[in-house]
């Protein structure tokens, strides 16, 4: 009985670990492909002079976005299960101070 359970427990463990990594690895591949396709499209548009602000643009490292943009990057607000985001206003204010300090 124990041996049977042990086998199933092992099966669950390796299946779970493999599934989690495979799924997320697939998603990484998919996202990378998607990003390349959209960038190529954006480049093609830019070269034909019809670039839009939907273009995925690189921002130099460590140059902070505006505080609002930083907050928007991870916008999840208003959910009972994510109530903690109500403190996001305070975080945004904090980030604004950081940006101003650096600008100054």
């Amino acid at each position, binding site marked *: 009985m*124990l041996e049977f*359970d042990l086998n*199933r*427990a092992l*099966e*669950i*463990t390796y*299946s*779970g*670990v493999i*599934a*989690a*990594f*495979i*799924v*997320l*690895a*697939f*998603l*990484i591949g*998919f*996202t*990378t492909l*998607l*990003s390349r396709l*959209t960038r190529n499209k*954006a480049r093609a548009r830019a070269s034909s002079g019809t670039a839009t602000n*939907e*273009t*995925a*643009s*690189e*921002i*130099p*490292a*460590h*140059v*902070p*976005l505006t505080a609002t943009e*930083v907050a*928007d*990057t*991870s*916008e*999840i*607000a*208003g*959910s*009972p*299960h*994510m*109530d*903690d*985001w109500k*403190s996001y206003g305070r*975080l945004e204010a904090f*980030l604004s101070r*950081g940006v101003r300090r*650096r600008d100054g």
Partner: protein
Amino acid sequence: MEFLRESGFAQLDWGNGLLILVGIGFIAVAIIKRAEPYVLFPMGLGIILTNLPGTGLTDFDPSGEVQASGLFGIVFHYTLSFWNILPPLIFLGLGALTDFGPIIANPKTMLLGAAAQLGIFVAFWLALALGFFTTPDLFSLKEAGAIGIIGGADGPTTIFASAKLAPDLLGITAVVAYSYMASVVFIQPPLMRLLTTRRERAIQMRTLREVSKVEKLVFPAGAMIIIILLVPSSAPLIAMFMIGNLFGESGVVPRLSNAASNEILNIATIFLMITIGAQWNADRVLALSTLAIMGLGLVAFSCGTIGGILFAKLMNLFVKDKVNPLIGSAGVSAVPMAARISHTIGQETDPDNFLLPHAMGPNVSGVIGSAVVAGVFISILG
């Protein structure tokens, strides 16, 4: 006198009294401390009500007439243990509130969301080991699976898996998951400081690129198809999560998006939390297994945190753009508290380090990762 003998006062025992006090405690914490009020407040009410004897509120007899069954018993049976529709409905709302931008901008951080699922497997094995070394048959394989999922640090996923695998433990696993999610601010920082050097905590990550609307639309649709094809049993959670997200990102169905993230989410929360609270019956809760689940939940959260941080350090051996290991701990889900903790601890070392957007990647990936692992558990054990 017959009336007095049949009253709740006559049937009340010390266990009921103790749990009514626990319920009042939940409500007090929600009101005074404002800690997880949307969870603790309705749950506290459920706990109080289920421990008032003689009400039959949680009774459910499938063979009897529906009118003879209790209100919470019916809700529990049809929305959780039988159809299990409340957690997916909550995922619909959460999907509408989620932004996949950070994942799309830096996809490699998704691996951290997978690594942080370590806690699930550690808790699963420890639950089995507890039964082996202490009380025989303390937890069955299914129960160990339900306990392990607590390590995913995702309330609806824990409830979904528990309802399928071990409905008797649902009340406890849900409360433990939500309690530790609210407590990550105490659990994670010491481990994060212990496992990282000051130099690692100061790593500034490359600012995330802007993500186009096309990417934000194609990602959830593609991810939904890929995940469901790979792990079909995760479909109820993943499909609803992605549908909710597509509602929001499409921009053409604002009423549906608003309904998902407000009305549906709120209605589902009311029934889910009161019903889970109503599972806190004295006979069920006052047991050795409850203490064991609480301990295992803590181990699960800690190991998830450790797994994410160590995997980030491992990644740094191979990647050109270094990852701040602090964002690894956000892979345990607990959205968005875990991401905020990564940011806060990073700023202790360097106030100009903005880790929050980077931490949201593993944070949201953790939600996907735990739903996938729950799907695997259900497909093998369910």
